[in-house]
């Protein structure tokens, strides 16, 4: 089974039924899986803070939401995380591609990578980092934890986790 299928299996098993996505090359496989699952309503967003708004509404309507996004967008979501998700105490698992780590071919991606964990730390967002495929074994517990504590929780997934970018 591919790692993308396993991740989406865990998402479905956690009862998550509303997923918004902003694409990243690393996340293409998992986004395809999300799109293909009947159990999930998939709504692509144009921007990550917009997606967090959709998730907030879906949560209040009785759904369990999740956002899939790239770490470069952390900056544009800070206000939304603080004044919506955290202020109103809403759960939001964030599956994030951690661009700019080892095996990254695009130098500019490193510029946000160096801020990623610091920003999440500053926001007091529980953060997990998947570096090896076996790290994903914790995903079911992380999702359970998110809906237990009603907080945004970040899952950073780097290039090594996804198997690199092929011939670079």
């Amino acid at each position, binding site marked *: 089974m591919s790692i993308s299928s396993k991740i989406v299996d865990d998402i479905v098993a956690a009862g998550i039924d509303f997923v918004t996505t902003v694409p990243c090359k690393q996340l293409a496989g998992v986004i395809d899986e999300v799109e293909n699952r009947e159990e999930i309503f998939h709504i692509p967003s144009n921007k990550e*803070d917009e997606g967090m708004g*959709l998730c907030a509404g879906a949560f*209040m309507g009785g759904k369990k939401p999740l956002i899939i996004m790239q770490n470069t967008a952390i900056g544009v979501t800070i206000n939304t995380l603080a004044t919506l998700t955290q202020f109103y105490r809403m759960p939001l698992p964030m599956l994030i591609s951690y661009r700019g780590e080892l095996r990254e071919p695009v130098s500019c991606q490193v510029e946000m990578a160096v801020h990623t964990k610091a920003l999440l730390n500053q926001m007091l967002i529980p953060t997990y980092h998947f570096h090896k495929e076996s790290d994903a074994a914790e995903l079911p517990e992380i999702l359970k934890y998110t809906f237990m504590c009603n907080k945004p929780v970040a899952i950073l997934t780097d290039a090594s986790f996804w198997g690199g970018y092929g011939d670079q």
Partner: protein
Amino acid sequence: MIRSEILREIAPILRDNLVVCNIGLPSQELHMIDDQPTNFYMLGTMGLSSSIGLGLALAQDKTVISIDGDGSILTNMGTLPTIANNVADNFVLLIIDNGSYGSTGDQPTYAGKKTSLAAVASACGCENVIECQDKDTGEVLQKAINSKQMTIIISKCDSGNIKLPVITMDPVVIRHRFMEAVKA
């Protein structure tokens, strides 16, 4: 008419529906005019009233009205293609367009100049887009609810504010009360 006068007029229509109300003065005005458990007041996060409303409408069957402003739509313009491509027939987006950033001192917005939000919404693929005058907002809103078709209303009105207090209710209380009303 100014925004608070429109809200006062449409309050009896809003009361029977789930309402997501925009940050700042719109929420303070609605809270003062007719506080209801079915109102979700945004205390922050400019621009996301339409996104929260759409997410809520897609998640359950009750009618949802997002009260938004022209400035907030301009802040989150990407919302309109998302709305157009994810039709929720229990969703009405009411944009009160006074051509200004009311909560921050009535600075003019581009919607009050050359930019037509109705044209933008149509170009984004929204199918039922109605621009109306302030005094007709109640009638247009009621028809949109009755039609059971997703509708975007742009209500053109005057710029201006009234003096009123901030909302002191705790956000978690607002959210909990609202979620109980959604389930009821």
